[in-house]
């Protein structure tokens, strides 16, 4: 299911992309990245029931590392990109183990707090990050396999390929034992641990995977804009990614991807027609929460059917016995 939808979607977008003017091609590229980011966050929200409100931190960190390395030290864009993703991953290794000690709302809050620390760092540490001015002039890799990446369309195809790879890998992994185990973490942590699984280890793994994929999105986003600014570490971005997951339907991967992709278009149209994007964002939030407890997925897939995703009511609410596990401090 997931595969079919995603692949079909990507193909459609690719074709469409080739016939649009360069501005909309660009919008498509960015939308794909947002889709990827949302999909990555779903690993936490939909599988582990951990709602992070701080994922912008990893998106931005990756972007900033890329930008700083290339503009300040003239590092080769490819290496810088890898370094960016590595940095996001490393940060997740730092925060993850601490964050997963908390549950539910505490997790939401602590991730938000971590996110704000990164935000504070990027806005204050001006000499390196350029503060509120951000860093302009980030070079793209000149070409890959003869594709001149400076050209919008070529870059778009490049984006499609990268995102496709990421999506396929992620889907594959989540359809395997790892995905099953993560669902176990959410449904009944104590039972899972009694079966010999290190629940917190799984949590951290999910956290890191999610963060590094978001990092990939961040790197691509920075490459596309050839600029990185504090908006990439802003809590509103975190909220937007989370919204994409919620609207898309937690626990389905493809739902969040589609939602993340679509929401970016909504944002562009919104800023185009009116100046009230934030208001629209808020309304979408409210409507989704009130009327689509399982996101747009519920319009397509019947409840209970496998792959029908997770009801919002069950996110944040750890399964039986989890509280006992918390007592022990895991």
């Amino acid at each position, binding site marked *: 299911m997931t595969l079919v939808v995603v692949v079909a979607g990507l193909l459609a977008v690719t074709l469409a992309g080739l016939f649009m003017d360069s501005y909309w091609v660009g919008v498509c590229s960015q939308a794909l990245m947002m889709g990827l980011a949302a999909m990555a966050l779903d690993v936490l929200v939909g599988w582990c029931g951990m709602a992070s409100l701080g994922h912008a931190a990893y998106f931005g960190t990756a972007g900033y590392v890329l930008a700083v390395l290339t503009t300040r030290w003239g590092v080769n864009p490819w290496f810088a990109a890898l370094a960016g993703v590595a940095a996001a991953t490393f940060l997740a290794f730092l925060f993850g183990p601490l964050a997963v000690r908390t549950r539910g709302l505490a997790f939401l809050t602590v991730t938000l707090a971590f996110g704000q620390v990164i935000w504070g760092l990027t806005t204050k540490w001006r000499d390196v990050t350029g503060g509120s001015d951000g860093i302009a002039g980030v070079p793209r890799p000149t070409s890959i396999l003869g594709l001149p990446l400076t050209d919008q369309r070529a870059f778009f195809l490049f984006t499609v390929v990268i995102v496709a790879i990421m999506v396929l890998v992620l889907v*594959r*992994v989540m*359809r*395997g*034992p*790892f*995905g*099953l*185990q993560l*669902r*176990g973490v959410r*449904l*009944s942590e*104590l*039972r*899972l*641990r*009694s*079966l*010999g*699984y*290190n*629940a917190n280890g799984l949590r951290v793994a999910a956290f890191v995977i999610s963060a590094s994929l978001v990092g990939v999105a961040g790197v691509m986003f920075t490459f596309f804009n050839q600029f990185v600014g504090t908006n990439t570490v802003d809590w509103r971005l975190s909220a937007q990614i989370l919204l994409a997951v919620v609207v898309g339907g937690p626990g389905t991967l493809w739902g969040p991807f589609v939602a993340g992709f679509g929401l970016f278009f909504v944002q562009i149209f919104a800023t185009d027609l009116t100046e009230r994007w934030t208001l629209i964002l808020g309304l979408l939030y409210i409507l989704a929460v009130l009327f689509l407890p399982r996101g747009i997925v519920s319009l397509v897939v019947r409840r*209970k059917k*496998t792959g029908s995703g997770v009801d919002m009511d*069950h996110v944040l609410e750890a*399964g*039986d*016995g989890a509280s*006992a*596990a918390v*007592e*022990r401090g895991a």
Partner: protein
Amino acid sequence: MAERVPVLEIEGLTKTFGGLKAVDGFTMSVAPGERHGILGPNGAGKTTVYNLVCGVYDVTTGVVKVKGCDVTRTSIHKRSQLGLGRTFQITNLFQEMTVLENVLLATTMATGESRSYFRLVRSLSKATEKAEQELVDLGLADLASIPVSELSYGQQRQLEVALALALEPAVLMLDEPTAGLSQAETNAMVQLIHRLPSNLAMVMIEHDLDVIFGVVEQMTVMHRGKVICSGSCDLVRQDPTVSEVYLGQSSS
């Protein structure tokens, strides 16, 4: 030689919640293949003992050994990997998953396929085979693909045991497996327990005296967190204190 090492040793196990001593100097030893029952009135601390042995609670004082090695401070999953398999008094299954997925989580652990991350669940051949076998034994084979939440209570209790069994533990710890079951279901459960491989040690908390006397040969009786009597079934039957605090109660 190794055969002689008890699979589970508990010495002077004590747990205090605030002021209250829930478990007080509990001591017990289970030999390989032994069937051991833990008996005691409600609130005697039986389930607390389980949670201490499996690592859900921190032990206040005392020692827990599995196959001779001290696990008093090791985490829940490590103990499980060492061979502790348990079921829960209140059914604790992955409700939203299918029956097969539930068992698979156990069998992949047993077959080591839990770490082959780049294979799809359905292509985990060994584990799947094993899981399907389990389900056949339980007579749940045709329910494999429905969510656990749609099973009957009796079937869920059986699945509880199946999950623990699928781990191929050294010692299986059942917590009131027949609680709340109908007579027919109880019998089915007893059959299941009787079919357990003879080399598998089994500890069982149970209220239903007919059931427990029917399956175990060794027994430990608890009262207010303390062991008041321990030994063979006959010995326990004749023990005056036991009949006073427990059998007496239950008969009255």
